[in-house]
């Protein structure tokens, strides 16, 4: 099933990033990114994706989110001039958790540069999945460092995505609450932040169930407070229904997934009990929605497990199966004594009872129900989005005509492959259904499909009709695909009947792009 849904994956990495060092005894180790990279090479995943060296984000780019003062401060502070900045360090919360280390600014530049470049890449539809393990620093605030994070590459990436996407979904599976991202988008309805995290006497202290956003952004912040010992099954039981529901109600045009690996078992700072497989399932699940997908790193403080996890998740993104036996690499000894890719959970008790998770879930569903169901607006937006993108893309292709673009053109030729695979991708979706069915599907079916979905669909359809975009076909598509795969709406709208013919759900921006192109031409 994985092998069917091959995607174009871009991967951002700078060989310098492993050489930054937060300081003695500091748990954050950028070296884990290099360990991941070496594993990717030796697993042969390296050759299966586009590898990019990101630019160094400029201060200008950073100030799209961060305050000028803060960025100026980050740019000028060094270990040898720290004493001159005492007051500012306090103000910007730089010092203890977020120490001043050699190359601090460069590190931020690389991390942010990767995420921004990845977002632009997605905007230009030059890729379907972008990965930046150097990013994911989700605690950084507008003018404040926090929790080992200085520059919030995620916010910068999302801001970039918002230029082309009406709605962006941010999902955070770090064990810590993604407070920086949530705060940045707390009052907007264009970004929904969903964070699964340990809550209660835990950094950063935010992420209560009751924190749901403010102003226009009310109900657009979703927090899932969890307790110690979350295991794979429990995690899936809450992740899958909530993300499905969010996808259904919010209908994002792009997804950012923060893959903080400190939710793995045995993490130095974390207190969950996830395995690499359970963690990777989140990636797998989100990937199935076939939306432009940005994966970033994040926490993770038992570095051997972090690199295991991110290697595996890269393979999930690539839909390549990799052996459990780790290949030899420069850091092979780190993975002793078993030298296996997958890890086993500990026997810690899971304090999250199924009743607790159920209650949380129901409360969140209630909140999500409060979202203005304006699929009309949404769907109105989506075709725009898609058409825009297409025209942009075309513009680019026509005008720029640079080498990489010609490369892309070349790549477009075998796109038939893609569309094939997309057709098969439905199979994937079908799998998806069964996959969900393992645990929560019955309830989901009731909730999503029968209760709301139908009513929503009807309104959608109405709206679409008002828009007057080839209503006939859409009606059926909408009802077909609705709960499963909202991204389809996009392609459906674009490609109209094409997608319909493909047994109801085109899927994937690839097909969308193609269809749109045809339309335009």
């Amino acid at each position, binding site marked *: 099933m994985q092998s069917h849904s091959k995607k174009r994956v871009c991967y951002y990495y700078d060989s310098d990033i492993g050489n930054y060092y937060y300081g*003695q*005894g500091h748990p954050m180790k950028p070296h884990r990114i290099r360990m991941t990279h070496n594993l990717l*090479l030796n697993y042969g995943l390296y050759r299966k994706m586009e*590898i990019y060296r*990101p630019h160094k984000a400029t201060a200008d780019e950073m100030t799209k989110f961060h305050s000028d003062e803060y960025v100026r401060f980050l740019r000028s502070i060094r270990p040898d001039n720290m004493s001159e900045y005492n007051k500012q360090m306090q103000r910007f919360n730089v010092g203890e958790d977020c120490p001043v280390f050699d190359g601090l600014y460069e590190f931020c530049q690389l991390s942010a*540069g990767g995420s921004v*470049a990845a977002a632009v890449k997605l905007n230009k539809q030059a890729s379907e999945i972008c990965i930046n393990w150097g990013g994911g620093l989700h605690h950084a605030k507008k003018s404040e460092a926090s929790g080992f994070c200085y520059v919030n590459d995620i916010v910068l990436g999302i801001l970039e995505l918002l230029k082309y996407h009406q709605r962006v979904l941010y999902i955070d599976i770090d064990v810590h609450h993604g407070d920086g991202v949530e705060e940045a988008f707390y009052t907007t309805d264009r970004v929904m932040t969903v964070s699964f995290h340990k809550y209660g006497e835990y950094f950063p202290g935010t992420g209560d169930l009751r924190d749901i956003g403010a102003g226009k952004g009310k109900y657009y912040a979703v927090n899932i407070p969890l307790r110690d010992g979350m295991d794979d099954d429990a995690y899936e039981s809450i992740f899958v229904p909530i993300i499905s529901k969010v996808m259904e109600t919010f209908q994002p045009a792009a997804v950012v997934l923060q893959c903080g690996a400190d939710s793995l078992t045995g993490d130095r700072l974390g207190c969950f009990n996830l395995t690499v497989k359970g963690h990777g399932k989140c990636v797998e699940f989100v990937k199935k929605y076939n939306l432009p997908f940005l994966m970033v790193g994040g926490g993770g403080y038992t570095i051997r497990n972090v690199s295991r996890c991110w290697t595996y998740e890269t393979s999930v993104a690539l839909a390549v199966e990799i052996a459990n036996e780790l290949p030899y690499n420069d850091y092979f*000894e780190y993975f002793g004594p078993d030298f296996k890719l997958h890890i086993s959970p500990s026997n810690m008790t899971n304090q999250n009872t199924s009743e*607790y998770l159920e209650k949380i879930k129901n409360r969140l569903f209630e909140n999500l129900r409060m979202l203005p169901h304006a699929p009309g607006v949404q769907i109105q937006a989506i075709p725009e989005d898609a058409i825009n993108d297409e025209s942009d893309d075309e513009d680019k292709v026509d005008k720029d005509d640079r080498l*990489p673009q010609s490369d892309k053109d070349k790549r477009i030729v075998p796109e038939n492959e893609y569309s094939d695979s997309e057709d098969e991708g439905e199979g994937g979706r079908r799998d998806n259904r069964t996959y969900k069915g393992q645990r929560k599907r019955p309830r989901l079916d009731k909730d999503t499909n029968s209760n709301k979905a139908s009513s929503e669909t009807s309104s959608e359809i109405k709206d679409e009709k008002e828009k007057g975009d080839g209503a006939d076909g859409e009606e059926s598509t909408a009802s077909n695909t609705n709960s499963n795969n909202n991204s389809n709406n996009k392609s459906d709208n674009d490609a109209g009947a094409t997608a319909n013919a493909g047994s109801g759900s085109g899927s994937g921006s690839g097909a969308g792009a193609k269809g749109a192109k045809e339309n335009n031409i």
Partner: protein
Amino acid sequence: MATNMYRVGDYVYVETTPNSPYLIRRIEELNKNQTGNVEAKVMCFYRRRDLPNPLVQLADKHQLATAEDSPLATKLKKTWLRTPVSEEQAAQAVLDPSIAALDEERTSPTQTSGGGGSATGNSSGNSSGTSNNNSSSTGSGGGAGGAGNAGGDAEKGEALTSKQRYQIKHRELFLSRQVESIPATQIRGKCSVTLLNETESLQSYLNKDDTFFYCLVFDPNQKTLLADKGEIRVGSRYQCDIPAKLKDTATDDRKLEELESLVWTPEHSLTDRKIDQFLVVSRSIGTFARALDCSSSVKQPSLHMSAAAASRDITLFHAMNILHKHEYSIEESMSSLVPSTGPVLCRDEIEDWSASEANLFEEALEKYGKDFNDIRQDFLPWKTLKQIIEYYYMWKTTDRYVQQKRVKAVEAELKLKQVYIPQYNNNGKGNGSSVKAGGGIYNGTTNGSTDLSNNGKPCESCGATKSSQWNSVSSGHSTCRLCLSCWEYWRRYGSMKSATKGDSGDGDAKKKSSSAASTPTATSAGLATTPTAVVDLNDDEKISDLTNRQLHRCSIVNCGKEFKLKTHLARHYAQAHGIAISSGSPRPIMKTRTAFYLHTNPMTRVARAICRSIVKPKKAARQSAYAINAMLVKQEFTNRISGKSQAEIKKLLLLKPKDRGSVTKIANRLGAPGSGPHEWLVLTPKDKMPLPAVVSFPKPPKAPDGSLVYDRVPNKSPDVVAVPADKDLTIIPTQATSTIRKRAHEEQQLNGTEVTIVPSGPPAKRPNKDPMPSHCPSPEQFAAMMAASGQPLSRHHLNGKQKIAQMARGGNGRKQVISWMDAPDDVYFRANDTHKKTRKILSAVDLRRAARKPWRTLPIKPAATEPSSRPIESQIVILD
């Protein structure tokens, strides 16, 4: 098995005193200490009863706010959460007068309890109105904790909801960020503490045993409450500006080319196989390059090592880059790997560094730890920081690091992840001495099956008249008895299972329990004195349980004494267990035994002057053992002083200086120049030196070859064998076989054994061990000796004070360090007349021999010794 396995992160019950409610703690760390005991570092949770009353009311207010969904409540909540500081201050403000008003409360308890009760009633009343199923007021749950609640409570005939409301208070805890250390043996079982989530019903906690919840954080030092919650801030200073979605026609000015550079693309014509082949080729070229390279061939003498070095990831990355650069043409890439300058050689840091650099690095790492900046500055200034860091992470894969890690692993062994604590046998302890002393369990000898009645009285809590065991919770002047199930409830939840007569309000319950908690302070003297648990209905005595919390408890097994002050505990440790605990203050924990001074008052001085003949001050000064007969002095003093006037006495007190002439005069005389070399300064010629009458160390005879011939000093004195035969010489004390003879004299003193000591050097200081090396045993040796004897150190009562001795855990054979306290005693030997006589009998040669070899027995004629009838203590004087 699993239930007794305690892990870091588990919530546990902790028993500090056998008859008070358990404490609730979270295990943060488990450490094995040197004696092999496991110590747990725990985070403290407080019960409602442990909190000062005003804070509890505040907490209720908060709960009221959170329990409701109404806009008012959320507003309340927001003010609470937004302004934690001001709220804190409010708490403080409430608190301070309240402490002062504690006495007042004592006299009018109803007032406060009423307040507390109304507050709680309020909260649950409000919440019952909400659809949330939030409060205990959902009527269903008769089962909530009511398992053992068989007794009919006519008096507590309130609705079940109120009982539940009462009980839910026992499930509320307050997190503190206070961490303390306890011996793991005090752990009595697991429980669960979770942050209350608003979606949960409180009922769910009541339905499950041993579950607690918390919402607020309590700071025991500041006596404040805080919501455990961060805040997402709203405002332009925190949110970002959302860019508008670009219009159809608008295009982003972003150029991908500026943002990224492609390093590899999968879009090429090469198959995987081809790439693999190319990688092999590049590795082979690398191997060959190393063979050509002089420095490499030194480092990697064997082909295998060269090949291994050429297979490192840097070569592979380089190969991939080359492929990409040459547009995935194998041919071109290949030729670029072998340019005219010779085959390409890629070396990473680990290979690049010379052996001496590596050594420097390891040395530096040992010195500075992982402070790479310092390492670079002081050791490897020619490397960049990045190089050093890269090297460090690669170095970690080497054997050298593995070795170091092993050392670390041994250290880490002391940090445990989990510990097994066998089921604590309540009965064993319950029937033990501690309870007997307090009469804690009535009919404690039950065989379980038979229910016993309690002298016709019902259980104070549930009214049951029969129980397999009756436990008494008692205070100073009144006790009440609880049936087993209520007692267990009481220990776990810190309160009665149901509200008792007349007081259903929570305030009273709290009051009760806080008074219960006050007893441990009173019993700091020890376990055996009084039973500690109290629930006294009428006792409004109110001492905050916090004092109880801060009791410092001796962590030694079987001791468990409690002290109010840490310093007291430290002193206790030092005195009773011989453990030196470094306290923060530079002051020594305890006084050494010699630290005293004599304060001479005028009368003493007068007495010295008057009774000079009796006191004999000069003699006393020379012989510290000389006993001055104080009685005689007193008598004489009173006799002589009686007739004297004040002025005369004063005169006596005046110091009469002795005229010895001026020092300067003497100095001048001696130092006067010109008097020439004095006669006494001229050296006597060697041959005119007077010969000694006896040569103590005559030169040994010369061997024919001119070398000196020395007698072999025998290892073992033949005398020893002779001694037992020599019946008349009672030299060796009867228990001479004991190995711990260092303290022989003290034992003798204690046993009162009569032992005649024949002057044989200073016998008291050493055991009669032959051959005794002429050095004291080192503390370790001594400890080993002590351990081998399997006997705890004898405590020596000296001046009523316990002697400081090293704690020895009987026979576990671990190495122990003797504290400084255990240095050899301040003991000297006082010769009595018998000894002096004996000395005179001995020839000078014998005496000297004895001085040189004190462990040897002396060849004394039996007739010469008069066996002294006095016990040895008369000869040993211990300075104190």
